[in-house]
């Protein structure tokens, strides 16, 4: 069983609000019809921040061994990196 010190409600609420704000930012970029290399990289950066916030704060991996956080970060770096590579291929 996971007996980590409970994450404060206030911190969880702040993380939730940041995630909502970043989602609205993603929507705004899409609604504005923005495209291209810089937009793609910005969207991937937002997605990376969101995914790591979910992993570290909602999944509570922040309170576990470093290896689990590294795995979640490595997952996004590899998948996100390959997605970026594919999009750059598409642009060229």
């Amino acid at each position, binding site marked *: *069983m996971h007996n980590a010190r409970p994450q404060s409600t206030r911190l969880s609420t702040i993380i*939730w609000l940041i995630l909502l704000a970043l989602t609205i930012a993603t929507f705004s970029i899409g609604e504005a019809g923005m495209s291209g290399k810089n937009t793609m990289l910005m969207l991937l950066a937002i997605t990376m921040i969101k995914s790591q916030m979910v992993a570290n704060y909602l999944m509570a991996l922040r309170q576990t061994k470093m290896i689990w956080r590294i795995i979640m970060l490595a997952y996004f770096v590899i998948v996100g990196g*390959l997605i970026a590579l594919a999009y750059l291929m598409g642009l060229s």
Partner: protein
Amino acid sequence: MCLNNVNLNNENSNSANFNLAELPTAQAMSGQQDLPGDFAIWIFIFAEMLVFGVLFVAYAFTRAHNVALFNASQLTLSLTSGTINTLVLITSSYLVVRGVAAIKQDLSKQCAYWLTGALLLGGVFICIKVLEFHAKFAADITMSTNAFYMFYLSLTFFHFMHVLMGMVILACIIIKAWRGGYSTQSHTGIETGASFWHMVDFLWIILFPLVYVIR
């Protein structure tokens, strides 16, 4: 694993009992904890992430050879629906966090309320997705229409099934929590279900910009 009052000799001995739960473990002393919930769910979570990861990358590389087709098809999707669903899943994940926090304070009923909120939001996600699928099928769009729709329908339907599975898990946890089946000391089941639900959220957070926004 929790071993309470383990007698190191035998059950009938008068020698002192050692309460192992009171002894600090190496992990607790270092401030690091095990993964939340049952470890088996994490094997499943990592396997699911791997499968979705391969699909995400396959989508991106297929798009690289059909950029105009993917961009034109992507415009037929409802960005608003995708955004609302993202907000819904994030909020449901937050409610699950509150539910886990409640059971750690031995508040079973409150835990059940928070988780019920998350379950209802899962229902909202399903309804919006069904409307999206219906709109596409009504327009005679299927998986064989083109490569974009093949990925869009398969990725989102695969994820949709995970949401349904997560809702079933949440429903089981809610019933048990309502009946007082969990406590501060014993709530592995809730953490296991919560971890699965957060994975569903985690994957959608990548899927949404990839399929609906990036062009």
